[in-house]
C-alpha cells in the first residue's frame, strides 16, 4: 500500500518553497522505487514550520518542518515514510502544542484533508450540515443560525442570523448570496486558507445560506491578490457541481444553488459590502448609502445576503452539531470561536482558532513566542489597517467584540500584527492616513481630503512645526472623519491614528526627545 504524504498547496507554504519540496519528493520516490500517494493539502496554519510535510503512519500523522528541497533525500534516508527520526521531525502533528491548545471548529479540516476530494471531505464530516439543512424549512435554518450567536467575521460583527431573517422575509423573484472574499486587512489570511485548504466548506455554507433565504444564485468575490485561492475555488466548484452539490436539484432534493466566481481588481474599499456589490455589477466600487439594506435591495437591486468567508464557513458545523454546540464556546455576546491570525514580527506566526476570550498576551507570548527579531514587543495592531495600535500595557485585553469596542479598537477579521521596539508609531499613523487616501472611494470629503490633510499634519507634527496646534488639528480632523464619513474607511482610520498618538506620544515628539538626550 502506498503511504500518504502531505505537502501543502497553500499559497504561504508555496511562498517558501512547498512546490520545490513536492517535486523533490516525487523525484526521490521514483528514484528509490518507493510507493507514495502525494496529497496537496491546505496549511495547518503553523506557518513558521512551512513547508511542513506530513506522513500518515500507523501511529497517526507525523510532521516534518520546515522542509526544504535539499532536505528531502535525507528524509528518505531517515525513513520518514515510516515516521523515522530526523532533525526536522516534529512528532505527531496533533501533539504540537500550538495546535493542541486550539479549539478548531471552522478550521477542523484545514490541512488535514485533500481539499479537492469530496470523499475526504465527507469522511471528515463534510456536507453533514447541508444534508440536515435540506431536511429543514428555511425559517428553521435561519433560526438555528440566530440561536448559535454567530456574528459576522468580516469586521462589523453583525449577527448573521438576523441578516438572514431580513433577506428571508423579503419577497422577490430572485435573491442572492454574496460571499465577501476580499480579505483586504493586513495581517489576515483566514479566508485565503479556507479557500485553498477546505473550499467545499465554503461552498456548503453558501448553499445552506441559499436554502435559508431562498436564494438560488451565489457570487464569490475574491480579491485579485489571491490568484491561488481563486484557482483552487474554480477547481472545487467544478468538483462540487459534478458531484451534485451545486446546480439544480441538489442531491435530488429539488433545491437549486448555482455559484459564480468573480475576481476583484485591487481596491481595498471593495471589501465594504455595498462597494463590493457595485463592483460585482461592473461599476466603480463606490459605497452606497444605506438604507436600503443589501438584505432588501442588494445585488442588481435584489435581496442579498452578504457575508464574510469565515462567517459562511462556520455555518455547516452549526447546522451539523446544533446552535447550542456552537454557542457554548465564547463569552458574553461573542459566541463561538474566532480564527485569529498572528502576523508580522512574531516568532511563531500562524492561525489560532480559539473560543472568544483569549488575551492578546496569551496569543503573542504563549502562541507567538514573542517577536521574530527577538527584541521586545512594543505595539500590536488588531483588526487590520482600521484597527487600533495597543501598547504592551494593554496586552491583557481579551479577544471579544465588546472588550475591544470599549477600548476604542476592534477585533475586525481577527488579524493581530506585532511590532517590536524599532517601530515608529508616528510613521504608522501617517501610513494609516496615506492608506485611507489611496483607497478612498472618493464619495465623502472628510475621507477623500481629510486623509491627505492628515498625512501633511502628521508630517508637520513630527517636524516640530507648531506642534501643539497641529496635534489639536489632527484631533479635529479625526473627529470630522469619524462623524462625516459614509463608511468605516474614513470613519475608522482615526482608530490607528489616535491610538498611536494616545499610547505612543513620544514618537510624535522626536525632535524634542533628541534635544533632551543631547
Amino acid at each position, binding site marked *: 500500500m502506498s503511504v500518504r504524504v502531505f505537502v501543502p498547496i497553500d499559497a504561504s507554504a508555496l511562498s517558501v518553497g512547498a512546490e520545490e519540496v513536492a517535486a523533490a519528493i516525487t523525484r526521490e520516490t521514483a528514484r528509490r522505487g518507493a510507493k507514495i500517494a502525494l496529497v496537496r493539502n491546505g496549511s495547518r496554519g503553523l506557518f513558521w514550520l512551512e513547508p511542513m510535510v506530513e506522513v500518515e503512519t500507523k501511529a497517526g500523522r507525523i510532521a516534518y518542518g520546515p522542509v526544504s528541497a535539499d532536505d528531502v533525500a535525507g528524509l528518505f534516508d531517515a525513513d520518514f515514510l515510516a515516521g523515522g527520526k530526523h532533525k526536522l521531525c516534529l512528532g505527531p502533528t496533533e501533539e504540537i502544542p500550538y495546535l493542541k491548545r486550539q479549539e478548531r471548529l471552522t478550521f477542523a479540516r484545514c490541512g488535514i484533508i485533500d481539499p479537492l476530494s469530496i470523499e475526504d471531505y465527507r469522511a471528515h464530516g463534510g456536507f453533514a450540515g447541508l444534508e440536515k439543512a435540506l431536511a429543514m424549512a428555511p425559517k428553521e435554518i435561519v433560526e438555528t443560525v440566530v440561536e448559535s450567536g454567530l456574528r459576522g467575521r468580516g469586521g462589523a460583527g453583525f449577527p448573521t442570523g438576523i441578516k438572514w431573517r431580513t433577506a428571508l422575509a423579503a419577497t422577490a423573484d430572485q435573491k442572492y448570496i454574496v460571499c465577501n472574499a476580499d*480579505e483586504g486587512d493586513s495581517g489576515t489570511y483566514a479566508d485565503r486558507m479556507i479557500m485553498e485548504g477546505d473550499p467545499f466548506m465554503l461552498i456548503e455554507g453558501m448553499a445552506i445560506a441559499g436554502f435559508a433565504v431562498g436564494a438560488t444564485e451565489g457570487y464569490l468575490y475574491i480579491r485579485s491578490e489571491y490568484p491561488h485561492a481563486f484557482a483552487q475555488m474554480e477547481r472545487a466548484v467544478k468538483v462540487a457541481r459534478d458531484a451534485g452539490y451545486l446546480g439544480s436539484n441538489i442531491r435530488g432534493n429539488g433545491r437549486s444553488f448555482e455559484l459564480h466566481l468573480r475576481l476583484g481588481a485591487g481596491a481595498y474599499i471593495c471589501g465594504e459590502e455595498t462597494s463590493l456589490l457595485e463592483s460585482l455589477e461592473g461599476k466603480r466600487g463606490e459605497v452606497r448609502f444605506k438604507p436600503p439594506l443589501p438584505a432588501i435591495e442588494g445585488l442588481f437591486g435584489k435581496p442579498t445576503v452578504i457575508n464574510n468567508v469565515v462567517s459562511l464557513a462556520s455555518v455547516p458545523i452549526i447546522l451539523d452539531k446544533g446552535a447550542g454546540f456552537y454557542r457554548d464556546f465564547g463569552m458574553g455576546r461573542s459566541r463561538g470561536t474566532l480564527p485569529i491570525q498572528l*502576523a508580522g514580527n512574531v516568532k511563531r506566526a500562524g492561525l489560532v482558532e480559539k473560543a472568544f476570550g483569549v488575551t492578546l498576551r496569551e496569543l503573542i507570548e504563549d502562541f507567538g513566542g514573542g517577536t521574530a527579531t527577538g527584541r521586545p514587543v512594543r505595539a500590536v495592531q488588531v483588526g487590520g489597517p482600521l484597527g487600533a495600535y495597543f501598547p504592551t500595557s494593554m496586552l491583557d485585553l481579551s479577544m471579544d467584540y465588546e472588550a475591544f469596542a470599549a477600548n476604542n479598537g476592534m477585533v475586525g477579521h481577527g488579524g493581530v500584527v506585532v511590532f517590536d521596539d524599532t517601530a515608529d508609531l508616528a510613521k504608522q499613523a501617517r501610513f494609516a492616513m496615506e492608506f485611507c487616501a489611496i483607497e478612498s472611494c472618493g464619495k465623502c470629503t472628510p475621507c477623500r481630503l481629510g486623509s491627505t490633510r492628515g498625512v501633511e499634519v502628521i508630517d508637520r507634527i513630527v517636524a516640530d512645526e507648531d506642534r501643539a496646534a497641529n496635534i489639536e488639528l489632527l484631533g479635529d480632523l479625526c473627529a470630522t472623519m469619524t462623524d462625516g464619513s459614509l463608511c468605516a474607511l474614513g470613519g475608522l482610520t482615526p482608530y490607528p491614528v489616535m491610538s498611536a498618538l494616545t499610547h505612543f506620544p513620544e514618537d510624535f515628539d522626536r525632535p524634542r526627545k533628541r534635544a533632551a538626550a543631547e
Partner: protein
Amino acid sequence: MQNHTPWQPEIAKALIAERRALPGAVIPILHALQDRFGYVDKEAVPMIAEALNLTRAEVHGVVTFYHDFRGAPPGRHVVKVCRAESCQSMGCDSLIAHIEKKVGASLKHTAGDGSVTLEPVYCLGNCALSPALMWNGDLYGKMTPQKFDRLHKAKVGGS
C-alpha cells in the same frame, strides 16, 4: 516572464464578445484584456462601451477606479511588493529601497531596460511570512535583500 500579446483590436473584440453576457461583465472583460495584453489599451474603452451598451465615460470610470488596471504595457516581469502593516513590521521599507535600487525603478515604474515593473500592493495574505512579494503571480515570503538578488538574477539574469 509574462506572456503578453501586443495590442490587437480583433483579439480584444473576441475577448469582449465571449464575456459580454456575464452579469457585471466590465471587470471580467478588463481582467481578460489585461491578462492577454498586460494592460488595458485606451482603444478598448469604446469597444467595451459599445458591446455593453454603456457610455465611454462609464467604462473609463471603471478602468481608472481599480488599482489593478494598467494604462500602458508593463515590463517583461511584474513584481508586486507588499507595503502593508504586517510587512512593515518586518522591515519592508528598507527591503523596498533595496529592490528599487536593484531593479532600477521606483514603485509604480518600469526599469529603463524594460525588465521589471514594480508595483505596490497592500497585503498578499502572506502576513505570517512577511515581508512578501509576488513575482509574475508567484508568491514569495520571508523576503530578504539577498534572496531578492538571487531571484532577480534567476529571472532577469545579470549580476
